[in-house]
């Protein structure tokens, strides 16, 4: 029996970035920084005859989660694919730098929530977007080094692709739903470069088996699996900020070990059911088809948690 508040909670996948923020934070606590009224827009889209957005597709600010202050960043995947660009990226970088500078002061926050919904770098602003990703990585790791966890939430329509996939894996903890996808090169780009026999991007089941939330959490690429409603994301965000690994040499040595073992254990596999069979799952072929309750039960039996991120 699904609790009533979850039945009524809106879908993360279907929600806009603003509605995700509203549903994630305590009521009436969100304070946006450089909101749409300020009209801080991309100066480059005009060159391509593309309409800009008043927030450039990124919403940043602060609020509270269960009464504790948090900083929040949300990409709007429906505007230019939620891409990293000069302005959208600078909003993210500026917020992360401010979080680090305020650590230990009365303005400090308990965590940063990063709501990824992105195809990666905005190609119309490719160089600015690439640098924005690199600056985001450095600023995000600065936040973690200051002892503040950064929690990635992935379940939007655009997924977390390109530089967005790299940024996701730099976070302290990754929360994902079945609809969430994490990857670097998208299936379409692999197909364009290497052919449909390498990766058939129109085979939706295959795309999800390779990049989707269930595959990521089983392999250790995501840490918390949630049902696809906003309330479940909120509960996972509140839980995970207390259990995030610090950004230290010990953590990185543990991640080195974790990722080396993955390569030696599964490096010759061609599809995820092969990995799951080798990992000892009783019925690997059923993993994409069972419902969320059954999948969560399967996860709770398996103890795949790690502190190596």
């Amino acid at each position, binding site marked *: 029996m699904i609790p009533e508040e979850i039945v009524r909670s809106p879908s993360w996948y279907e929600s806009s970035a603003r509605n995700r923020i509203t549903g994630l934070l305590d009521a009436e606590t969100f304070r946006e*920084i*450089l909101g749409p009224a300020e009209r*801080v827009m991309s100066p*480059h889209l005009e*060159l391509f005859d593309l309409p800009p957005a008043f927030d450039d597709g990124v919403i940043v*600010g602060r609020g509270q989660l269960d009464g504790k*202050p948090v900083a929040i960043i949300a990409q709007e995947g429906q505007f230019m694919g939620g891409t990293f660009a*000069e302005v959208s990226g*600078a*909003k993210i*970088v*500026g917020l992360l*730098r*401010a*979080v680090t*500078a*305020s650590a230990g002061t009365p*303005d400090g926050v308990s965590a940063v929530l990063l709501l990824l919904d992105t195809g990666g*770098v905005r*190609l*119309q*602003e*490719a*160089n*600015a*977007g*690439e*640098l*924005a990703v*690199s*600056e985001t*990585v450095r600023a995000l*790791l600065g936040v973690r080094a200051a002892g503040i966890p950064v929690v990635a939430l992935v379940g939007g329509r655009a997924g977390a692709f*390109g*530089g967005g*996939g*790299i*940024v996701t*894996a730099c976070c302290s903890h990754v929360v994902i739903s079945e609809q969430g996808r994490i990857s*670097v*090169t998208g299936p379409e780009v*692999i197909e364009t470069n290497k052919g449909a026999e*390498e990766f058939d991007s129109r085979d939706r089941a295959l795309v999800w088996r*390779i990049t989707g939330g269930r595959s990521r959490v089983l392999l*250790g*690429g995501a840490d918390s699996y949630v049902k696809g409603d906003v309330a479940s994301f909120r509960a996972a965000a509140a839980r995970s900020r207390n259990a995030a690994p610090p*950004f230290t*040499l010990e953590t*990185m*040595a543990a*991640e*080195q070990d974790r*990722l*080396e073992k*993955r*390569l030696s254990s*599964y*490096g010759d596999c*061609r599809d995820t059911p092969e*990995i799951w069979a080798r990992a000892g799952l009783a019925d690997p072929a059923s993993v994409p088809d069972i419902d969320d309750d059954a999948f969560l039960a399967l996860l709770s039996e398996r103890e795949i948690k790690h502190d190596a991120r």
Partner: protein
Amino acid sequence: MTPVELLTRLFPSGHEVVAGPFNTLAGRAILTDGAAVEIVGVTDGAPLSPEIAIELAGSIIRIVQDGKKTPIVLLIDTASQRMTRRDEMLGLNEYLAHLAKVVTLAGLSGHRTVAVLYGAAAAGAFIATALAAQTLITIDGAHPSVMDLPSIARVTKLPLEILEKKAETTPIFAPGVTPLAATGAVLENWTEADNFSDRIETVLTLEASSDTRDTLGEERGGRKVAHSVALRVAAEFGKAAR
């Protein structure tokens, strides 16, 4: 330029850099004052695979574990990240992020980190290698990019000739050293006439604890608004707390 030629020009006092697995390099070099520098590299334009990323990261972790805070110079000639279904299935994003994290951790732990791009680097591989160091130097002939123009043309659905024309008016999207330097990614580009040994020793002495690439992009006019937007957000952050 081959890695051997590059090493000879950077470190005429000598080096013990050797080839490792998967087109990687690792070893020590000596500066003219006798001080040591750790070298880690990727060669031959090899697409960045999970294997290469984990090999480079492992070398850097061992250097940081050594505790001597020796400067680290990354010599980079890669391509984009390797584009295969297998690599994505194995979580290539985690391997690239791990490498970027380890390079960043070295910088935060007191190692001076400088990347010397002497070949290509693109897309996610560029972020995980050359752009992860505190300072990026390019050698004449280097080719950094996010995506090549024909691919940008395909995704943006614009004819290539139109894109090439637009690239003459702005450094914001075109590949290459000049536009990327204008946006602040590259500190210096060295040409054949430069004394690489003098230059690297000077660059290694520069203070680099904070990320000033957006300031550089503003000064050079290639990224006019990023720095000011980031500053405005930071200024509002405290006010929003009250």
